[in-house]
């Protein structure tokens, strides 16, 4: 199985940088990896993201050769890695704990890998160390002891050390988890920049979905030893193929219920709705033929075209996107909190508060207004998050930070059928 051609792969068809096939890892009776397939193209920044214990680190350790898979294969640049020890795989690894050798200086740490590979042609060991330290913005640190550095600096030394012997594959195992949030954001930008500059294929493991979305070329969402979905960050966010992906990446409202009033399925692309208002409203009228009766709650509009754009690349276990559904079918759907508009009683269609800040963008239509009560609010600075009660069902809404709401306030929530993503079908 191969991924669709994004990334900066070479023009001619060559072996992918990393190819993992049907990887299984079992410890006694527990299964850590249950048949994982991953393809990473040359130069890609590929992220494995998932909750702790999902198998993402185990996958990385199989790539590095620290873990012997029970079954399946790992190929790096077309070479089978079966029986190849870590030191012969041509990899660079950065761990969460930095793992700098405490009995060596920064320079000795960076130079350690050069003991085995020698410095690149035309340079000396010292030049190479200086070059790498400059790359990670730590020039002149060669003689320092690792324990005199801050966490962020140590992590950058670890990165320089991993890159010094020119690995063909960079493996990053939660490298930022031990750092504080602000530093983490700064460092991830720097890591990504270095990765782009060197063009080095990188596999990144993190439990932080926000980080994964921010830095990756492609993401694999891992859960329970299996890959749920693989795709570009935007793709995964807007078109989650499974309920797990929908709930794991970003905030989401997930509803389950049964389909009511089935109409004829009508294909429609997202672009079609961005035509003029009248056409959109006409289309919306037809869409109201389909609705989801949420368990113990109200109804949500459904589009039969839902999922038409939700490709399920790289063999994720997504739903069959073109299938129609009938009355009575049970579905699980999700709506992003920021895709819901919120309106106070008495506001106009485009809601706003005292300073009349519009809460919805013009292209965002509304197919249904759901009556709800605000239960609690969280002010996040750039946004306000509302926890609402809609006929006994909890709904989270994210709206402009300028608008404020009171607990107990009655509101209506606007929803566009195109934003209702089906993540589980019969």
């Amino acid at each position, binding site marked *: 199985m191969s991924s669709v051609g994004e990334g900066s792969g070479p023009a001619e068809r060559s072996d992918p940088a990393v190819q993992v096939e049907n990887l299984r890892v079992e410890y006694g009776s527990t299964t850590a990896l249950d048949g994982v397939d991953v393809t990473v193209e040359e130069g890609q920044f590929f992220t494995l993201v998932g909750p702790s214990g999902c198998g993402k680190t185990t996958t990385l350790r199989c790539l*590095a*050769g*620290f873990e012997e898979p029970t079954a399946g294969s790992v190929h790096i*640049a077309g*070479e089978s890695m079966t029986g190849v*020890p*870590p*030191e*012969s*795989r*041509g*990899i*660079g*690894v950065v*761990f*969460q*704990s*930095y*793992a700098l*050798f*405490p*009995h060596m200086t920064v320079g000795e740490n960076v130079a*350690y*890998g050069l*003991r*085995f*590979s*020698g410095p*690149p*042609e035309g340079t000396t060991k010292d030049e190479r160390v200086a*070059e790498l330290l*400059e*790359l990670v*913005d730590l020039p002149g640190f060669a003689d320092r002891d690792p324990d005199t550095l801050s966490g962020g600096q140590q992590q950058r030394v*670890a990165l320089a*050390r*991993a890159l*010094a*012997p*020119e*690995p*063909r594959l960079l*493996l990053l195992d939660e490298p930022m988890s031990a750092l504080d949030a602000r530093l983490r954001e700064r460092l991830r930008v720097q890591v990504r*920049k*270095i990765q782009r*500059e*060197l*063009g*080095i294929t990188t596999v990144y493991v993190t439990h932080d979905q926000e980080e994964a979305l921010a830095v990756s070329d492609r993401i694999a969402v891992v859960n329970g030893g299996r890959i749920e979905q693989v795709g570009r960050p935007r793709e995964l966010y807007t078109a989650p193929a499974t309920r797990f992906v929908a709930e794991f990446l970003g905030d989401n409202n997930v509803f389950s219920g049964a389909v009511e009033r089935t109409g004829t399925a009508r294909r429609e692309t997202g672009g079609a709705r961005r035509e003029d208002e009248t056409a959109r409203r006409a289309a919306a009228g037809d869409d109201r033929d389909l609705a989801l009766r949420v368990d113990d709650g109200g109804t949500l509009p459904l589009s039969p075209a839902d999922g038409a754009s939700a490709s399920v690349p790289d063999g994720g276990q997504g739903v069959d996107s073109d299938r129609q559904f009938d009355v009575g079918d049970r579905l699980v759907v999700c709506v992003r909190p920021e895709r819901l508009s919120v309106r106070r009683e008495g506001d106009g269609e485009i809601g706003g508060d005292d300073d009349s800040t519009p809460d919805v963008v013009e292209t965002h239509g509304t197919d249904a207004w759901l009556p709800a009560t605000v239960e609690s609010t969280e002010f996040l600075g750039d946004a306000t998050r509302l926890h609402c009660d809609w006929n006994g069902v909890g709904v989270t809404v994210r709206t402009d930070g300028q608008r404020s709401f009171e607990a107990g306030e009655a509101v209506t929530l606007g929803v566009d059928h195109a934003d209702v993503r089906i993540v589980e079908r019969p």
Partner: protein
Amino acid sequence: MDRPVGAALRRRVSDARIGRTLRRARAAGPASLAERYALPLLAVVTALLLALLFYYPVATVFVDAVVEDGRVTFGPLAEVLTDEFYLVRVVGFTAYQALLSTLLSVLLGLPGAWVLARFEFRGRDTLRSVTMVPFVVPSVLVAAAFYATFGANGTLNAALSALGLPELDLLPSLGAILVAHAFYNAPLVTRVVAAAWESVDAGAVETARSLGASRRRAFRDVVLPQLLPAILTGATLTFVFTFATFAIPLALGGSQYATIEVFIYSARRQLEYGRAASLAALETGLSLSLMALYLRYERAQAAERRGVRTLARRSLWPASWSRERAVRRLAIAGYAVVVAAVFIAPLASMLYASVSVDGRFTLDAYRFLLERQATGATFQVKPFPAIVNSLVFGAATLALALPLGVAMGVLTTRRFRGRWLVDALSMAPLAVSGIVVGLGLLRGLVFGFEAFGYRFTVTGAVAIVAAHAVGAYPFVVRTVAPPLDRLDRALVESARALGASRARTVLDIELPLVWPGVVAGAAFAFAISIGEFDATVILAEGGGTYTMPVAVERFIGRRLGPATAMGTVLLAVTAASFVVIERVGGEFRG
């Protein structure tokens, strides 16, 4: 960040990728192949050495116990088991004195744990380290020190007669044996219990208090349950150690208070190997089952606590006095007097006796140690060769035990199936007494065995080094393994990813980082070899391989001066080792 650097790097990456694979392929020659199998090879060599130096010899003891004239008859063992004298008088007395010694050690050790864990005072850390001393103090040294104190011509009687009081006849006696055992084992109890006490979370006690428990009640409900396992640990170890006691009852007890080990020794001297083997098998069986029971219990208990806030320590000299505080301080002062009498007085008496004759200062005893000529009949021990032997054996032990222990340490910190078995097998020498090991080496290696059509024999000296190494290497393992175990696995894996083979990683990363543990282990090994008595005396019988401890034992009761002088030399060597252990790598998991 500098642009050109990045660009230059990028240019090189594509060329380098091809070059790298080739370079690595070339590197995979025979040298790297050897490196790859270095660790498995190390494991095999270690296992073979252990089998040859420990398991085979000890097995021969068990075989001797059940085989007569080449047939399995269980005769010797049955003889011992059905003989009321051996069963009651020997085994019974051994268990009895071990039980009393355990009680005394716990009684003497517990207040020490309380003081160490709950009070702050100058020298607390030093005192804490000193509780490790019994591991390195030779048992004959303690015997000599007790002789110098409580013997007929000891300092106690000298003091009594100076005061015009009647002299006491305290040796040989059961009491002296018990106190000497407490000298060894009370510090062990103190150490183990103080560690448990310090790992009690102050938060748990404070929570109990906030919920309404009085101070006493909180102690009973929260602290005591966490101390009991440690007390039990200290007591079990003490019982096992004192059950297999040898040098102390031999020197201080005489024939009335002979333990199993003393009987094994006398059976060996009378060349009754079957009887010696039967007693040894019986004792080892009992010790090992007790140890196994204990280890099972310990595994069930094992839960390492980290990051707890320890109970705040109070000052020994409080800012304000209350009745209760004064009573406690008085109790501590009383305890200090007992500690001084049990621990310090014997050693001081020994030093004093070594430089005085009838209250007059003299270095005659030390001069005697350096005499190379025999000064009497052949049964007399020549002191100078004993010193030379001790140093040679110590060095040889170091050369054998250090690599063995480090290899074992590296192997036991690997994660693999059946590691517990490796752990147990490698630690077994701790649970088998020196007498039994010595007997095994004598029967198995010194008398020789036939294999592949050849007869293998070793000299007594080689067997002594083997016995010392077997006794010493578990201490190396115990100083090397904990820091190795704590080492971040990512350090090793980083080195591997950077191109180092597994064996290379041991040399480049692991050993440099646990170096203090290795040095401490070396000091332990040396100290244990220098002080080893039990196996040595079995193997040195009739040969020219006397060591310092054997000489001390021979001098005890005959010539106090040389005995105490040599005891002092032993003390100096073991104290030096202790300082090395303490200064360099003091984190022995004992």
